[in-house]
């Protein structure tokens, strides 16, 4: 819109002390990580109201799931949260297997766990770098991407894709994990442990970082419950809710791992939860590598996959929280209804309440601690 000269007649300096102004943060803003728009009513630098405006990258993934076969829909899900594609395809694959009662070989389940946890680490590495970038520290993201690169190389060797993996298939996997992958993963675990310790020493213990995150943006468990926030957000509020334990899937029940929780419910708690989760993921990968059996990597799957009429849900613990796929079938080869419950959507919806009365940099630090992926919000 080309504004006329008259629109500019009121200079901002004429605002009285009681007046507020509207700040349109986004859809293009360095801290919006994509195309999130937050309509902020500001009193100076204090936020009176921050209303997230979503829908800039809505792609109708649910509807697309309803007008194509399940196999054709599967790659779509890796584009929803592009940082944890493995988990998202896992949920769809799991829902179909549960509905069609397909047996999955044990080897495939172990490889799924290994790749999922690798994906979780790479996703958390991106979050870590991006949060520090939000806080004005530019260097950590390059170290984070250095480590992430190793994971991407491993997964690329396995399935050809570096970001939007479509490695899982109904009943198994696209191909078997070769020895190079298994050895590479073992090397990566050994490489990553001292790196995580270094990040703790250099970044987590930095006094500026601690001051910027501690007691900033409290999100208590009660608020998480009202908005349906999951993942590191609710674990940062002291609730040990993890889909891997609450609604066990794959071979997670056979594996030993802790659910890191911090009762402080502030941004630092969410930060520490994710840092601990990376360590737990490494621990899970080590166990899975030790336990992985030989055998086929894909089970018996009918050539034309038709789900029996019914309603199936399957939830996974994605990097940002609980991702659930609901498939309603009427017996055709396409689903009658697809519902995707994405964690970022719920985690964002509490932003308006949680950011009330905060100062702008703190509100953006809190937004960083929520680890939002915008395509995951809009679907």
């Amino acid at each position, binding site marked *: 819109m080309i504004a006329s000269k008259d629109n500019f007649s009121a200079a*901002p300096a004429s605002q009285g002390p009681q007046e507020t102004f509207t700040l349109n943060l986004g859809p293009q803003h360095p801290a919006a990580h994509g195309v999130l728009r937050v309509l902020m009513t500001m009193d100076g630098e204090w936020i009176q109201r921050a209303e997230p405006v979503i829908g800039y990258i809505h792609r109708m993934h649910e509807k697309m799931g309803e007008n194509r076969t399940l196999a054709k829909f599967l790659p779509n899900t890796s584009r929803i949260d592009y940082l944890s594609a493995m988990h998202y395809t896992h949920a769809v694959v799991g829902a179909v297997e549960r509905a069609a009662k397909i047996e999955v070989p044990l080897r495939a389940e172990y490889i799924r766990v290994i790749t999922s946890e690798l994906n979780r680490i790479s996703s958390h590495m991106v979050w870590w770098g991006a949060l520090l970038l939000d806080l004005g*520290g*530019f260097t950590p993201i390059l*170290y984070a991407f250095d480590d992430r690169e190793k994971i991407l190389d491993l997964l690329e060797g396995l399935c050809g894709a570096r970001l939007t993996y479509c490695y899982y298939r109904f009943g198994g996997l696209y191909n078997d994990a070769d020895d190079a992958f298994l050895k590479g993963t073992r090397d990566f675990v050994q490489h990553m442990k001292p790196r995580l310790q270094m990040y703790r020493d250099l970044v987590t213990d930095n006094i*500026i970082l601690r001051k910027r995150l501690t007691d900033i943006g409290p999100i208590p468990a009660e608020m998480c419950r009202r908005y349906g926030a999951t993942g590191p957000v609710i674990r940062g509020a002291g609730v040990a809710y993890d889909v891997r334990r609450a609604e066990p899937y794959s071979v997670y029940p056979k594996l030993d791992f802790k659910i890191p929780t911090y009762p402080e419910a502030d941004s630092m708690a969410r930060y520490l939860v994710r840092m601990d989760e990376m360590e737990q993921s490494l621990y899970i990968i080590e166990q899975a590598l030790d336990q992985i059996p030989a055998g086929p990597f894909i089970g018996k799957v009918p050539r034309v996959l038709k789900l029996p009429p019914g309603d199936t849900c399957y939830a996974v613990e994605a990097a940002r929280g609980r991702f659930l796929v609901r498939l309603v079938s009427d017996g055709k080869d396409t689903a009658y209804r697809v519902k995707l419950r994405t964690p970022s959507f719920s985690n964002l919806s509490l932003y308006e309440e949680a950011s009330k009365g905060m100062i702008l940099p*703190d509100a*953006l630090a809190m937004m960083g601690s929520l680890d939002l992926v915008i395509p995951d919000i809009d679907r």
Partner: protein
Amino acid sequence: MSFLALEPIRVLLYLVGICAFVGGNAAYLVLAERKGAGRIQRRPGPNEAGWAGILQPLADGIKLLAKQVMVPPGTDALLFRAAPLMVMAPPLMCLATIPFGDTVVARNLNIGLLFVFSFGSINVMALMLGGWASRNKYSIISAARVVSQNVAYEIPMLLVVITLLMITGTMDLNEIIKQQAGWFWNWNVLKIWVNPLMPVTFVIFFTCMLAETNRAPFDMAEAESELVAGAFTEYGGMGFGVFFMAEYANIVVGCCLATILFFGGWQSPFGALSDGLWGPIWFLGKTYALIFTVIWIRWTFPRTQFYSLLNLSWKILIPLSLFTLLLTGAMMKLPLLFK
């Protein structure tokens, strides 16, 4: 009597030299910063233009010059255009009194210190005007931040300078340097027999210098992840380029001042080899070491919160600098009591 000895010509040559020095520094400090950042982040940094990226500033300059300088509608066009000039001119003036060597100085004023600080403070006003004239909400927030930040940090900085003035007893920058002659323990930063808190005074001065020049971790004016580009959001092309150069020019002035006040200026660390050409070499060596520290800090720390920045100044730095001021006064006057 040679032609060069004439005072007006000497001053003119020095001013041209200072302009070239500031321009060259601004251009190559950008490269140094990017190379330094690359080193810290384990990547090569700019390495395409020329050998090891040596021509990168030239490419950047051509790109910025070729861009249109936009004045967005609704802005205060005069102030919008004037702000980059006002931010660039003061550091040039400051450098006119800075002695690079025993005789290498454009104009040796006997109130050099006062002159540098009075011109150094104009920087704030320029950033505020730039932010205000842009008619952009991010710029306005940034302008408000710049003012409160610079007011808060000017006070401890000046208190530290007053402490030094009590010790040196002169505002003549060259005289201050000459008092620090001899071995390096004669430098003001290590003169703990005058005031045991002298190293702390330097830390206060350096922190304030970082805040005054809006450098990380105190870069509230730019704060790219919060305020897009703060006061510079609406500036493009050379308007932005001048702001960018001025930031480095201010760093150079700040580090020159720190070298003069605390590290003995053009004096060598061991009492010899500080005359003639050696003076500028020592001076620039110390200055660039400080500038490297500034770059190093920027790429290591995240940004502080705005209120903790102000808390740092009002609750820690100002009381501390007042205390050092009192301590210095007491240590200077106590011997007189027992005479």
